[in-house]
């Protein structure tokens, strides 16, 4: 287990390094950052001054390592727009995104695991078809459009939920439904196939032969084994949700990190954009690392192979 943990940790670090290098390279994507900051009409002296001030005149490798070392210590530089440290902005906005992400993944799990189990109990039944229908529709419906439809329904026709802001838990209901809905198909299908496989196995037949009640067989014996792969999928989906939160947060004006990133992209506030990209990626890397460890702990075959 220790060897596996160390190997996996090394991989996570390498991935984090590569991701940070790609994120850093965004600075140079649009051309010379000094010219971009100084503006079209700036004189050569102005540009040179900015190059010195921000250190753009040094070799790129040096700039990258300085940026990466600072970033891993929580220093993402200054926001061009707000003129305050990016880290402070993130600390203010991240809790909103996290609340949204956690509630959305919880919603998805609470919806998809029972549906997956029920669908697996009676394959090809009406309920199974309904579950399939939910996932087919979920994969084809644009998330921003679904969000707008919910706004029209629950804020205009039947004003139950507020549509903008993040002050109370009510503000999170509609965004949670939209974001959670998109993780539902994948988790539901994995639960269903896992359950079908497990329900056909010998130990379930033994449990049935012993005369155990259906709910004990389903939830105590079968589901436990069927949800192991769901754990890692949920981790992956949570990472995707953070990325997808940018669309949802901007529609509901939920002031989270995704919304901050979208605003900052519009304002050319590159340090903030880079920080959000890096933080979201790191979340994904840490989550998949933890879920791999959990899987290795649950299933000894993984850590040996």
């Amino acid at each position, binding site marked *: 287990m220790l060897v596996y943990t160390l190997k996996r940790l090394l991989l996570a670090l390498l991935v984090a390094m*590569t991701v940070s290098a790609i994120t850093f390279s965004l600075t140079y994507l649009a051309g010379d950052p000094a010219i971009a900051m100084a503006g079209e009409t700036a004189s050569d002296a102005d540009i040179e001054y900015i190059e010195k001030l921000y250190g753009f005149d040094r070799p790129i490798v040096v700039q990258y390592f300085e940026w990466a070392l600072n970033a891993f210590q929580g220093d993402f530089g200054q926001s061009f727009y707000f003129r305050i440290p990016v880290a402070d902005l993130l600390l203010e906005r991240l809790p909103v995104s996290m609340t949204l992400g956690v509630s959305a993944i919880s919603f998805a799990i609470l919806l998809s695991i029972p549906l997956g189990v029920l669908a697996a109990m009676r394959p090809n039944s009406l309920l199974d078809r309904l579950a399939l229908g939910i996932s087919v529709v979920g994969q084809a419906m644009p998330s921003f459009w679904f969000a707008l439809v919910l706004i029209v329904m629950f804020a205009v026709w039947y004003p139950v939920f507020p549509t903008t802001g993040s002050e109370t838990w009510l503000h999170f209901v509609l965004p949670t439904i939209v974001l959670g809905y998109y993780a539902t198909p994948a988790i539901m299908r994995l639960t269903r196939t896992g359950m079908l496989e497990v329900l056909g196995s010998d130990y379930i037949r033994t449990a049935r032969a012993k005369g155990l009640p259906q709910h004990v067989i389903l939830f105590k014996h079968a589901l436990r084994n069927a949800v192991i792969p769901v754990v890692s999928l949920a981790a992956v989906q949570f990472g995707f949700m953070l990325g997808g939160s940018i669309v949802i947060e901007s529609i509901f004006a939920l002031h989270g990190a995704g919304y901050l990133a979208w605003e900052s*992209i519009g304002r050319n506030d590159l340090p903030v954009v880079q920080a959000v990209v890096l933080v979201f990626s790191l979340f994904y890397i840490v989550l998949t690392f933890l879920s791999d460890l959990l899987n290795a702990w649950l299933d000894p075959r993984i850590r040996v192979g």
Partner: protein
Amino acid sequence: MTTTIANRGLPAAEDIVGPTPGQQLRRRIFGHRGLMIGGGILVIIFLMALSAPFLAPHDPYFQELLARVKPPVWTTGDWKHVLGTDQLGRDYLSRIMYGAQISLLIGFAAAFISGVIGTTLGVAAGYFGGRVDMVVTFLITVRLSMPVVLVALAVVALIGGSLTVVISVLGLLLWDRYAVVMRSATMQIRQMDYVAAAKAVGCSTPRILLTEIMPNIMNNLIVVATLEMAHAILLEAALSFLGMGVQPPLPSWGLMVSEGKDYILFEAWMITIPGVALFLLVLAINLVGDGIRDVTAPENRN
């Protein structure tokens, strides 16, 4: 005894021939409801996109400023603008028809670029294994760690939004699923006896890859291509909706939803029509992809 039975009008053995493989395939295709429905919708949207220059009732860019935000014909509108007009008085039906061109172009082109990248990486990893596999797996992990929407938005905003930029960015971002699927499919095919036989008679590696491996992973490739096409279309719509994708005045469906969202309180049809168009297109592509998988799946072959 047997001859008498045979002579009583029962067909002779040579007359009982099963359907040919071609007939079986056709039966599976035409008997697959999802594939037929999806294929039907896709053909309609495709024809709509192709025929837009001839059949569209109006110029999609012409602004009839005296006829702004006119509702579609089934509410209070008239037959001059069947699906109504947008906030600048442009005919909605014409814009939907031209918008189909944009969605289909982006879907095909992005799925093609990412397909070339992902298939190359995946097949190389699956066939050569070892270090190549390690590097490719690492690249896939890195790619999966980066939030797609955010990176695409940032890159498009930095370079400047245009059709070419959106296609290239999506093509360069969406290759991960190809690589994953092609890698495991190639690993399975590599174990086959006919690959070993081809090696034994001295076929070169490129020849084995092109004539032994590729034809046998083709069905997987097509299925992933449909998924990624749908993915690219939805992402383009989301990027355009957020204002960092296809730029106005191009009639992108995502952009149309974005332009209509100021009117959702009273003119909900303005977002409903392009939204339904997007939904139908992506649904059709997904149904076709699932159908191709069902029809060509090895376990269904006799």
